[in-house]
């Protein structure tokens, strides 16, 4: 029987797949999938191994943080900001405190600014260390590289615990300063950790930077063009891996970042490998900032004496404050109507907005690469879904 005489077979086309030529397969990756770093789902349409279409699906961890904060006092939301990006609670606190300080016109004492920089940069170190560990795990380097990174992270978490009482949910900053001063011997211990940190980076780079499998899995994968990255509002290490020189620490010079000499590492190709290397380089720059800050920190008050934390009522008005969080631009937008709780409280989550370009980066790559590309974006679902 020739092919022409065969009866035609009509299959019911799935509504989400257009163009029923070939064998397209719709796969739902997540929400319970180890590589999605939380409860995150991607609707992927595949042609064989290749991605034809990808739509991210959010909301599995949505708890309407903004609504809760609008019913809470200004100070009452501070512990809740820890739960946004639970790897970097210090920088979340900092962004919120900065927005409230702009809203109410509060000055921060010098020592408190130094403390903010020391704790904030330690947070950046541990976030990036985690990220490169997870990225290796996503690529199949199971266990060892992740544990090396977690070993370093644990040293920093020990420091934060000694200072704030909690490893991850620090709840440390206040409007006009910080909650407590360093305990005795903390700075010396921090100096030891910071001085030992480049050794970990050297070791990690020697182990992996020129590893053949790593290079094969990451170079030329998930390339993000410069113009698209800017237009899509991508920020943080992802943006700088495309070669755009935009670091809010340099642009806004919030706090006292203009006093430190550090450089902004830039990538060239915008692929996963560049995003990986940017994090390693940024950690080296953070170490420089930390060493300068620990050397120069003055003594003095850590809280602005004029600010009344309890019964805090800023004048009616609005403010947008933003910082360079480890994952990108973290901003808080507040509107006050003169009452003790904000009229509008908005978080600009870098993780969510960096995911805008996920589909563009994944198209044409294999399913296994989607996992690596998502890992290199560095998302935390507490912040994506809020």
């Amino acid at each position, binding site marked *: 029987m020739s092919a022409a005489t065969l009866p035609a077979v009509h299959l019911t086309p799935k509504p989400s797949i257009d163009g029923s030529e070939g064998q397209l397969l719709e796969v739902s990756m997540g929400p319970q999938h180890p590589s999605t770093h939380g409860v995150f789902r991607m609707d992927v349409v595949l042609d064989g191994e290749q991605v034809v279409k990808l739509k991210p699906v*959010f*909301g599995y961890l*949505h708890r*309407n943080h*903004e*609504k809760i904060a609008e019913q809470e006092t200004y100070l009452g939301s501070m512990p809740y900001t820890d739960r946004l990006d639970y790897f970097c609670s210090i920088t979340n606190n900092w962004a919120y405190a900065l927005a409230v300080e*702009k*809203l*109410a*016109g509060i000055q921060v004492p010098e020592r408190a600014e130094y403390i903010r920089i020391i704790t904030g940069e330690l947070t950046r170190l541990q976030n990036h260390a985690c990220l490169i560990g997870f990225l290796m795990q996503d690529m199949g380097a199971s266990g060892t590289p992740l544990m090396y990174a977690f070993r370093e992270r644990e040293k920093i978490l020990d420091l934060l615990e000694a200072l704030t009482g909690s490893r991850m949910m620090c709840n440390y900053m206040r409007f006009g300063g910080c909650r407590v001063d360093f305990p005795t011997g903390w700075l010396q211990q921090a100096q030891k950790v910071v001085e030992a940190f480049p050794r970990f980076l050297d070791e990690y780079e020697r182990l992996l930077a020129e590893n053949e499998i790593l290079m094969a899995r990451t170079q030329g994968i998930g390339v993000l063009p410069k113009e*698209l990255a*800017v*237009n*899509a*509002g*991508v*920020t943080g290490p992802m943006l700088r891996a495309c070669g*755009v020189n*935009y670091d809010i620490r340099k*642009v806004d010079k919030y706090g006292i970042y203009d006093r430190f000499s550090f450089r902004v590492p830039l990538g060239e190709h915008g692929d996963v490998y560049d995003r990986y290397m940017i994090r390693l380089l940024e950690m080296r720059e953070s170490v420089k900032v930390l060493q300068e800050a620990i050397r120069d920190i003055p003594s003095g008050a850590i809280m602005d004496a004029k600010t009344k934390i309890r019964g805090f009522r*800023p*004048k*009616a*008005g*609005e*403010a*947008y404050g*933003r910082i360079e969080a480890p994952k990108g*631009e973290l*901003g808080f*937008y507040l*509107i*006050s109507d003169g009452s003790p709780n904000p009229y*509008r409280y*908005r978080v*600009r989550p870098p993780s*969510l*907005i960096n*995911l*805008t*370009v996920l589909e563009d980066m994944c198209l044409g790559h294999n399913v296994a690469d989607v996992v690596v590309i998502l890992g290199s974006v560095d998302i935390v679902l507490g912040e994506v*879904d*809020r």
Partner: protein
Amino acid sequence: MTLEPIKSEIEANVSGCRLEILLNGSPSGQLSLLIDPEHALAVAKFLRDAEHLRFDYCSNVTGIDWPGKEISVTVKTKKIVDGVEQEVEEVQKSQSSGCLEAVYHLYSMEKKHGPVILRMRTENRTDRVSLPSLTPIWRGAEFQEREIFDLYGVIFDGHPDLRRILMWDGFEDHPMRKDYVEPDDYEYEPTAHDEVLQKAKQHLNRAGWP
């Protein structure tokens, strides 16, 4: 950045647009620019492409709900009271319709300046809630406009993929609105709370506690 020169420049380049600078009472001093929805796309395109402005980066997009307020106006009217014409003060009450607002924070990555804050307002909160989407100008607004649609109910015309983003598809209301009422559909399970409390009180009485 000072807004007045930017405002006059937009007015010179986008014909017919109505702009208004909104003041800000807080020490942050971040003024914003209220634009009319009909010319919003042209204004946005001008801000992005103008050679010395180059606001190429749309950082934060968010919605605000302004519910309608009761406006009371005292009006003097003439009335005949007890056969004599008298001037009587009367309070007339009316309800303003309120509006939904979309706010855009723009920065320039090329020139490293900003922010310029754009605002757009809908006509009311019930049936005329459309605004033009600025996603064709800045893709960074894509997910954030979807979020405003989801949580506030603003319909963005020209958005490529306007669906709910955080709430599920079957959800009906817009939870970030100020007058949102939580549906009373939780499953309650009776607990032994009252019995346990009674027992505890008896126990305390026996032990001679106050």
